[in-house]
């Protein structure tokens, strides 16, 4: 009962609800069908854990027993662990409670005895990675020696001390971020508001966390500089595989293979740049006809047959006629 009947009943219920969601808009059928789809997505997500476990189960014994090509398995396992680690947002666990500290001094050594001390103060930013961008009151602090580039830390910026109508000092907003060079940023952002008296000095020491996870730089680096080139390499191999397969397929052996070779030659001639030059000739029109008439007819026949086959197998499974996946009768 549990092994055969229950799966058959479940299959019937899910299949019928899925089909009803397509045909019957009323009665929340569409919603129910969509909910069942969501169930499927959740199950598929859980299966990824099984996939990870399977990779470990299959490959670790090969490495441990030094089976042939165990080195590749080791590289694969280490790569998987590396991607897994940088894929977690681990920085959220070790992020400091305070992203930075501010020390304010009423007197700045740099301003003592200078005329600027009457209306100027100094903001020092130190402790963060050198090439982060510092903005004071929304304005980027740039390096005078390198036009357009952010000033390197430790930096000292002179700021005007202004007061509002009520006589209160207007605070300065210091923002340290990594938005200048990299997208997404490597470090999280830090912003602080500081009230300074004229002639005073504030030292800001950000404690920025290096960001990990799918948006973090390590993950993107691995993706862009290792995974993507490897992927492109594999895809590029297709060109060579096509050549060798075409060489065999177009070998002239009998009438059918001769027809195949002739059609292939015509279509290739029409597709290459030289073929476009011959666009007014009968040869070009013939290749167009091959592509638009017999090819399309064949494709449609296969598509229609496949669609009917799909309907038939769908009905077989939903109606419980097909039971081989449950161990037969």
């Amino acid at each position: 009962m549990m092994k055969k009947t229950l799966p058959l009943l479940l299959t019937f219920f899910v299949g019928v609800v899925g089909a009803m969601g397509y045909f019957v808009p009323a009665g929340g059928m569409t919603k129910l069908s969509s909910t069942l789809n969501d169930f499927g997505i959740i199950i598929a997500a859980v299966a990824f854990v099984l996939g990870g476990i399977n990779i470990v189960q299959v490959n670790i014994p090969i490495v441990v027993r030094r089976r042939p090509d165990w080195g590749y398995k080791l590289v694969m396992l280490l790569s998987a662990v590396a991607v897994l680690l940088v894929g977690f947002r681990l920085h959220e666990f070790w992020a400091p409670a305070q992203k930075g500290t501010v020390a304010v001094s009423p007197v700045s050594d740099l301003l003592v005895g200078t005329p600027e001390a009457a209306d100027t103060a100094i903001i020092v930013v130190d402790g963060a990675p050198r090439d982060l961008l510092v903005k004071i009151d929304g304005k980027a602090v740039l390096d005078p020696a390198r036009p357009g580039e952010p000033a390197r830390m430790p930096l000292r910026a002179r700021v005007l001390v202004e007061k509002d109508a009520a006589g209160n000092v207007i605070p300065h907003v210091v923002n340290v971020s990594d938005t200048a060079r990299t997208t997404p940023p490597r470090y999280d952002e830090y912003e602080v508001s500081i009230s300074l008296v004229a002639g005073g000095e504030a030292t800001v020491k950000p404690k920025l966390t290096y960001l990990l996870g799918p948006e973090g730089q390590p993950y993107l680096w691995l993706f862009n500089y290792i995974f993507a080139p490897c992927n492109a390499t594999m895809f590029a191999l297709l060109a060579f595989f096509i050549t060798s397969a075409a060489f065999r397929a177009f070998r002239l052996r009998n009438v059918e293979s001769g027809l195949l070779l002739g059609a292939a030659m015509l279509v290739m001639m029409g597709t290459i740049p030289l073929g476009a030059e011959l666009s007014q000739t009968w040869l070009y029109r013939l290749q167009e006809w091959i592509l638009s008439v017999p090819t399309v007819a064949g494709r449609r026949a296969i598509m229609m047959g496949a669609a009917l086959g799909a309907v038939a197998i769908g009905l077989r499974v939903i109606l419980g006629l097909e039971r081989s996946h449950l161990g037969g009768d």
Partner: protein
Amino acid sequence: MSETVAKLVKSAMFALILVAGPASALAEGEAADAEPQWPPPEGATSGAGVAGAPGPVGNLSAGAPKYDDGSAIDIKWTASAGEAEGASPKVTSYLVLRSNPKTGPVADLIGKDPMTLAPRADAFTMVKVVPATGAGSEYSLRDQPAKKTRFVYMVFPMAGAVYGRPALVGPASTDTAYWNGHHWLVALTVLIMGVLIAYFLGQAKKRGKEMYIRRIAGIDAMDEAIGRATEMGRPVLYVPGVEEIQDLQTIASILILGHVAETVAKYGAEIKVPCMIPLVMAISEEVVREGFVRAGHPDAHKPRNIMFISSEQFAFTAGTNGIIIRDKPATNIYLGRFFAESLMLAETGYINRSIQIAGTAEITQLPFFIAACDYTIIGEELFAVSAYLSREPRLLSSLKATDYFKALLILFIVFGTVWMTYFHSDPARQAAFMDLFFPGS
């Protein structure tokens, strides 16, 4: 609680408007760049009867979409004259409002200037601000009101924050359809298939297993190919495609995997199943185990031979090619949905001198399999393999049903060709034919 908050917010908004003092929204320049808003500012007029105010929208209509689940109302209109070249003030957007069910009978709203309704903010709710796209444009908006009742819709042409002359339409209500008429042809297909299957199932029960099915070389070769692997002492490689489990080609492949696993177990060979989708791996493992149990060799099943490689297409291809090169399977079976990896797998198998049987309904990949494999199962044959292998009358009946339906389909194609050719100079009749069988095409 939320209603109280909403009332407080609304009261605060009106209080602000009162404090700000009456300001005519028709004061051009001042309001030209402002966003349309609802409730309207205190003192704003609807533009009805105001000289120079943008004219109303044209052909305003509201109604439930056809074959809807009872959740939506479609509002359609054509551009206001205020969108024309040189019009001043120029219409920049349309403010679409829906009557509030709490206001009272919606019929009472028709013909009234909404700005004169008290309290006017409660009479209508803003649905959306639709940006103007130019003179002569046609607009449509799908509203999904939370409650199923009758509504009046009102559309203001807006020149910035200046209210033009409103147009009202209604009452309109949502409509729940119990049948999606767009899909009648699919329903008919399923129904005919169901009837044919039932008929041939009855016939099969009467005649036993004597039901003729044409031979499919690729399927017939499977036993021989598995036997070859057994003799050579090498494994059989089975790739169930690269699609999710809900794909019908994957389902067909998994059903065939059961038969292949059973044969492998009977012959005492080994089967390896690399998978790209973890869920396919989990199900394949169960199906292979069942196959070994059916063959009476449950102990011979090695769960680790059904493996998840990677969910990335080319990483999976590289891993599977590695298995072909290292383990040198004598037989490779590729059944299911494949994409660019089809030729990579098949060519690697060819280099390895394996017997290769491939099958897919993916048209773009069929030529690659035909070029590189010994046997190719084409399109619908993939869905027939399980029935063909089992030879069970109840499954073969579905193949018979498919064949007969195909005959009906050929008649339909001939009829359609004759119709379209005969009425080649009458586009209306051609369109009627298309509308009947393919609504919305």
